[in-house]
């Protein structure tokens, strides 16, 4: 006799399904929460920062002659003069020097307005002199006021005049620092990882090294700043505030990241590739150079890019070695005083003028897009070269 079997879920089974559903719901809730934070953060940054990408410009006639070179703010009419950013007047002698034909002519130009005008136009502040407001409104009705792309944000250095402040010197500083980090930490990190993974015997000593490298990755970054200050600046005499000092300090921080990711990439290469190479008479190094390294290269590069992205976003250790200076002109060498993107953002965030609030947010957006680009490159590299065994 066959026993009656019911295929409908039992109560116990139903309970199990419900538990599963609940667990799934928790996970989705956690994900949504994380996404919500991200959305709030980004929309706030974009809301505050987008306005810094455009600037109020006013169409005026500029007169170039002997007088206006000396008294530059007289190059435009007295009425408009206080609306125009001081940064423009300073450039008049240079403009004439570069182009003598300008002398004794009058040109119609779109000029950057002062931060006060800009803030007023964007609706952030109402503290504009009533007379200037009236002038501005009249110019506006004549179609002589509009927004232009703020190219200065990207192509000029820091400035005490907010309408003239830009990220250029921070870009250059970050670039130099990145080069130093790459040149120092990539070869040292990869070589260390190859030795530890492929050659080192497994004993107490190498285990201690391994543990310490892992610990190094967890050391608060400000301590690396102290170390850099003590070793590179005080002991080796690397110039303070320079990209070289910053790069060396950040290399200390990036090294463990590169070592750990390179070791993981080497470990992922199947053992039988090494054995196959050695079985046909390749030496250990030949097996690594010809087979293991090419296979693990995407992983190594991914780790390196992520390490460098981390270094680019790092501020704390740089504060200690003086890379927080006011740098209006981009450095031309590794040993000159420099600043980097996050340090520039930090500087701006402490400025009293309202216009710097938007600049800070804009700087954050630029830094974030740079980091996203770097990390996306890492992901693409990994996906493109990923091999299945």
């Amino acid at each position, binding site marked *: 006799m066959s026993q009656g079997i019911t295929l409908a879920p039992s109560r116990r089974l139903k309970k199990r399904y419900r538990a599963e559903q609940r667990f799934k719901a928790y996970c989705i809730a956690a994900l949504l929460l994380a996404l919500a934070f991200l959305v709030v953060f980004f929309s706030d940054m974009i809301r505050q920062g987008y306005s810094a990408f455009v600037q109020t410009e006013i169409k005026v006639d500029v007169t170039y002659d002997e007088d206006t070179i000396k008294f530059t703010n007289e190059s435009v009419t007295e009425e408009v003069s206080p609306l125009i950013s001081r940064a423009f007047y300073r450039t008049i002698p240079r403009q004439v020097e570069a182009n003598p034909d300008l002398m004794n002519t009058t040109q119609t130009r779109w000029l950057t307005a002062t931060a006060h005008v800009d803030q007023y136009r964007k609706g952030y502040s109402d503290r504009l002199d009533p007379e200037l407001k009236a002038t501005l409104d009249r110019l506006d009705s004549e179609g002589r006021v509009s927004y232009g792309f703020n190219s200065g944000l990207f192509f000029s250095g820091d400035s005490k005049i907010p309408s003239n402040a830009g990220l250029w010197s921070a870009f250059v500083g970050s670039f130099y620092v990145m080069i130093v980090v790459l040149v120092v930490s990539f070869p040292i990190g990869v070589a260390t990882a190859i030795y530890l993974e492929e050659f080192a015997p497994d004993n107490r000593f190498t285990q201690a090294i391994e543990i310490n490298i892992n610990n190094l990755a967890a050391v608060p970054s400000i301590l690396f700043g102290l170390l850099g200050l003590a070793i590179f600046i005080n002991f080796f005499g690397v110039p303070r505030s320079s990209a070289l000092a910053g790069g060396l300090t950040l290399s200390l921080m990036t090294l463990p990241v590169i070592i750990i990711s390179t070791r993981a990439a080497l470990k992922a290469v199947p053992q*039988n*590739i090494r*054995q*196959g190479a*050695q079985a046909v*008479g390749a030496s250990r190094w030949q097996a690594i150079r*010809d*087979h293991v390294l090419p296979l693990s290269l995407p992983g190594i590069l991914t780790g390196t890019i992520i390490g460098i992205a981390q270094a680019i976003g790092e501020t704390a250790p740089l504060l200690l070695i003086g890379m927080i200076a006011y740098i209006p002109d981009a450095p031309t060498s590794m040993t000159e005083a420099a600043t980097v993107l996050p340090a520039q953002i930090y500087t701006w965030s402490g400025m009293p003028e309202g216009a710097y609030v938007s600049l800070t947010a804009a700087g954050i957006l630029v830094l974030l897009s740079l980091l996203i680009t770097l990390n996306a490159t890492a992901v693409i590299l990994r996906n493109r070269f990923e091999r299945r065994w």
Partner: protein
Amino acid sequence: MRTRDLTGDNTQVVKVPTTERPRVNQNMKMKISDLEVWYGEKQALHGVSMDVVENEVTALIGPSGCGKSTFLRCLNRMNDLIPDVRIKGEVEFENQNIYAPEVDVVELRSHIGMVFQKPNPFPKSIYDNIAYAPKILGQVRKRTDMEDLVEHSLKRAGLWEEVKDRLQMPGLSLSGGQQQRLCIARAIAVSPSVLLMDEPCSALDPVATATVEQLIDELKENYTIVIVTHNLQQAARVAGYTAFFHLGNIVEYSDTDSLFTHPREKKTEDYITGRYG
């Protein structure tokens, strides 16, 4: 226990009980005596002695963990790569002990090739898979010579007709059986005299297995082959001699026919009739 040596040299005491004297007119390619291997504290081989007959296929069979793979990997010193391994005893090849201090493992491995359980072509093109070893060993320098060698090796491995139009394709694009034959072609490209095979067909389907077995049969004319296998029928099909390993010892070693039809040891009989293993 006093037993006869495979070479017929009755004065030597070895731990190999044989049921039948193999043809003595054949040369011995390798002589292994008292090979002991430890992995850390664990002893994997307890003084194994056996001789490998030249231009024959010798199969090593036995249950998992019996030491047959360990034994095989001692013959080209692949075990050196494992940390914590200790090896005692002698493996004589070309009248030299391969564990003597003056022996260079890289040189040794160019004379004793190896094919692994899982096909492991290099992640390079088919051509480069074959050309790699002769190039780094400096055996072939001219491009045309290399092309000839690649063609010759692939022909020997019975793969030429299938891949001659796509030598620049990655080796990993081939099927499992083709990959394994590529690995065999790679191994014979450096003209070794001994080929060690560690369960070369265990990852292959029956059709590919048959092809590789046929290849092994052809290769024994020029090479001495030692093959580890879990498949008793395979041992019976391809091997002239078979050794049965158990718990790190050789239980029985004789020509394949005798071992399978008249096993001398009870353990061997139990194993080949499927009572354990």
